[in-house]
């Protein structure tokens, strides 16, 4: 039977898969970018695309670590705590960071503005979720301190 615990475990497994995916992509990035340049036949993409992708690795890993901490807290029934707000804020900053990094590549290849928009949009959504968490913490505190 599907339940909350199994859902969290599935999310944790997906995060671990993403960790491996990011590390493998970072290692294979030179080959993958070379292959992309070869397939598309566009000259001069290699260095900007590789630089953009490599710059996105640190925010990606930071976001995954934050997600891991967030899930760990949720698993321990500590969803509405200040640390989770910090994690959501950090993840939203990581999204904005990726959006800013991709602006550089989008100048060369305008299709990358889709990634800029998507990352920025995710960042905004996470900020709203963070605001909801802050509100929920305030309500919980008021409830806890109503005697």
């Amino acid at each position, binding site marked *: 039977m599907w339940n909350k615990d199994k859902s969290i475990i599935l999310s944790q497994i997906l995060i671990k898969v993403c960790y491996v995916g990011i590390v493998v992509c970072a290692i294979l990035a030179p080959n993958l970018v070379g292959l992309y340049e070869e397939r598309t036949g566009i000259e001069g993409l290699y260095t900007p695309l590789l630089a953009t992708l490599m710059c996105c690795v640190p925010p990606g890993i930071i976001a995954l670590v934050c997600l891991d901490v967030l899930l760990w807290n949720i698993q321990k029934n500590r969803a509405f705590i200040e640390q989770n707000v910090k994690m959501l804020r950090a993840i939203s900053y990581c999204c904005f960071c990726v959006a800013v990094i991709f602006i550089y590549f989008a100048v060369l290849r305008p299709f990358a503005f889709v990634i800029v928009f998507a990352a920025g949009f995710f960042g905004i959504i996470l900020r709203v979720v963070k605001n909801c968490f802050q509100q929920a913490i305030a309500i919980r*505190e*008021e409830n806890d*301190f*109503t*005697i």
Partner: protein
Amino acid sequence: MIIVNLDVMMAKRKISSNELAEIIEITPANLSILKTGKAKAIRFSTLDKLCGALKCQPGDILEFVEDEED
């Protein structure tokens, strides 16, 4: 701001925290939150029990004082 003078009333009535907590059926931890002024709100039912146990009026327990910055 509202000041809770529960400790003053408890001293006047010579009643301990544990005794009072038992009478009004709340945990000593919650009573401590009330006494130290950390509480954000107080239920009418709790106030009712407190006034009953301490034989006093709500005004004896709660006091309004002007904020210093006002």
